[in-house]
């Protein structure tokens, strides 16, 4: 530890400069308070925060495996219930743990209705192993297992719609958030913890190392995702979208051109067809969630 702060997620951890996941962890605990038990899956956050014999967590924290944090969390919830204890339980996982390898455990835990909050820090690829594609990687992003090349434009599939999948499990509260809007994230964590039953928050967490931008631009990149409509911050209560952040939308290239993972869309020459497809994704998001602010002419 290099020092102490007033935060329950302590300084001195080993995240990259500009890491959104570290900010997400700090914000979650600021909102949740000390009466909280955290279950982490294997991934960047787990590794940078707990190299034995150090820990950045000033709340009880447990890591078991990559894919089982929601199963571990359901055991903890049952254990606390049996003992008559009142701590809140938060499971945290990256998008690899959440969208892909942990899907079975998450589906089971949500269907059973355990009272816990699952938070996914979504940096849109397997970052801990060195930037491989996941089910959360966006269309056309270049990763080390979906590299752009002479006959590839990068990742061929759009993001899996996990919030909708978990809402369909009957989750009473599902929300998306962004590291670029921390007060909003904080409110959503509080709401998720106050709501009984399994709740889910998916936080957009730009990764400077994996996406290819300078660490001081993390917040700007997060904002641009929202402002282009490629990420929508919304809330779902009992399966219905109740709130979505409205924006005056910018063209998607404002977001794409800032990141190395989309560089092949602009160099050696601008690929209008592919950029148009990504613009169509943003347009569809805007229509689905009604996020466009109509400016008076």
């Amino acid at each position, binding site marked *: 530890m290099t020092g102490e702060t007033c935060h329950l997620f302590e300084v001195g951890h080993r995240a990259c400069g500009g890491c959104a996941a570290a900010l997400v962890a700090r914000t979650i605990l600021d909102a949740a308070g000390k009466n909280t038990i955290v279950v982490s899956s294997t991934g960047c956050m787990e590794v940078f925060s707990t190299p034995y*014999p150090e820990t950045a967590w000033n709340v009880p924290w447990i890591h078991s495996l990559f894919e089982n944090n929601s199963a571990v969390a359901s055991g903890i919830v049952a254990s606390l219930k049996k003992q008559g204890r009142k701590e809140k339980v938060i499971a945290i996982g990256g998008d690899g743990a959440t969208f892909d390898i942990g899907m079975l455990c998450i589906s089971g835990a949500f269907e059973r209705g355990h009272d816990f909050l699952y938070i996914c820090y979504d940096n849109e690829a397997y970052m801990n192993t060195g930037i491989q594609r996941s089910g959360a990687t966006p269309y056309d992003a270049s990763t080390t297992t979906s590299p752009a090349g002479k006959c590839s434009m990068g990742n061929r599939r759009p993001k899996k719609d996990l919030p909708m999948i978990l809402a369909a499990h009957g989750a009473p509260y599902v929300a998306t958030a962004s590291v670029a809007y921390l007060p909003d994230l904080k409110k959503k964590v509080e709401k998720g913890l106050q709501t009984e039953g399994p709740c889910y928050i998916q936080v957009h967490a730009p990764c400077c190392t994996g996406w290819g931008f300078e660490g001081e631009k993390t917040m700007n990149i997060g904002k641009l995702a929202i402002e282009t409509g490629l990420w929508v911050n919304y809330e779902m209560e009992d399966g219905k979208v109740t709130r979505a952040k409205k924006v005056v939308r910018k063209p998607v290239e404002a977001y794409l051109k800032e990141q190395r993972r989309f560089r092949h869309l602009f160099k050696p020459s601008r690929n209008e067809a592919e950029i148009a497809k990504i613009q169509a994704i943003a347009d569809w998001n805007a229509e689905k969630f009604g996020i466009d602010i109509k400016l008076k002419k």
Partner: protein
Amino acid sequence: MMEFMEGSHAVAHAVKYCRPQVIAAYPITPQTHIVEALADMVANCHLDAEYITVESEFSALSACLGASAAGSRVYSATTSQGLALMFEVCFNCAGMRIPVVMSIVNRALGAPLSIWNDQQDSISLRDSGWLQFYAEDNQEATDLHYLAYKVAEDRNILLPAFVCFDGFILSHTYEPVDMLNQDQVDSFLPPYSPVQRLDSEDPMSFGLFASPDYYTEFRYQIDKALKDATKKISLAGKEFGEMFGRDYSEMVEAYRMDDADCALVAMGSICGTVKDAIDEMRKDGKKVGLLKLRTFRPFPEKEVRKALLGVSRVAVLDKNISLGAKGAVALEVKDALYGSMIPVFDYIIALGGRDVRKKDIRSVVDLAEKGKGDLFYGLRQEVLE
């Protein structure tokens, strides 16, 4: 009190008397009767436990890990493919020193698919850091659960434990069992009192990653605790014997071994058949004895060596095969007898539920006398052609 019970139900009752606070399990043949019986007890308020109906064995053990870390006594049960699916979590429980007790209703592993008994499933987890007990009959199957909790939760051990008993042969068979009552079990097994737990009053981090500077020491400590468990098993087994008349202070059981020329070595229900076969062979003047292993991990190396040093030959009955090598029990027995020049013959037998009769045990002894061993016993002719 003597009761006539199906093995699975006897075990379920023993588990109930251990007062598990959280149970997470997934149905799989031939284990299912245990978790059904426990669910019924919870549904009728005979057992005050949280019962998590998980979606897989992988989540069953993961949930137990979390529940135990949060300070509760936990229970699960599985077999075969279910245990294979738990592989990763098994290593995790031992590494994190989580004292789960889990019944393994031994069954073969596919492919080819088989729901019938052998011991390949638990044997395949021999390196995972769990205690492994093997029951000969339903009496042992129940008693070993009390013993397993007592040893697993010991502050100096803190390791998970398998209580293994043979699928169908024991689990689905009715036998008279001397069931303890709740007061008796309570007097032997105190409530779980965790050394540390997930607790916001005293926050701690569990399951950190270890660099090469630390990893080896963690492994050393697990190995040491597992070896130290030898003494704890002996003490707990002695205490159990003094309280209830069945002494489990020895991790092995010697049957007619005093003047034995040929020693059979086996684990589990096959030991009953072996004992009957030995009685018959003894009448015919053959000096045969049995060394039954009740504990496979920790491996009772000293007891095995001591018991076998006087014999002329050893025949090991392995209901498993470490493919490409030998049966797992034979490998351990050979290691225990290293330097003694006593020949150890291995017989892979009773795989995938193939029945073993007294005459098969006689045949094994004959083969050992002829110096023929290290083979699959009773193979169908066509695979040899």
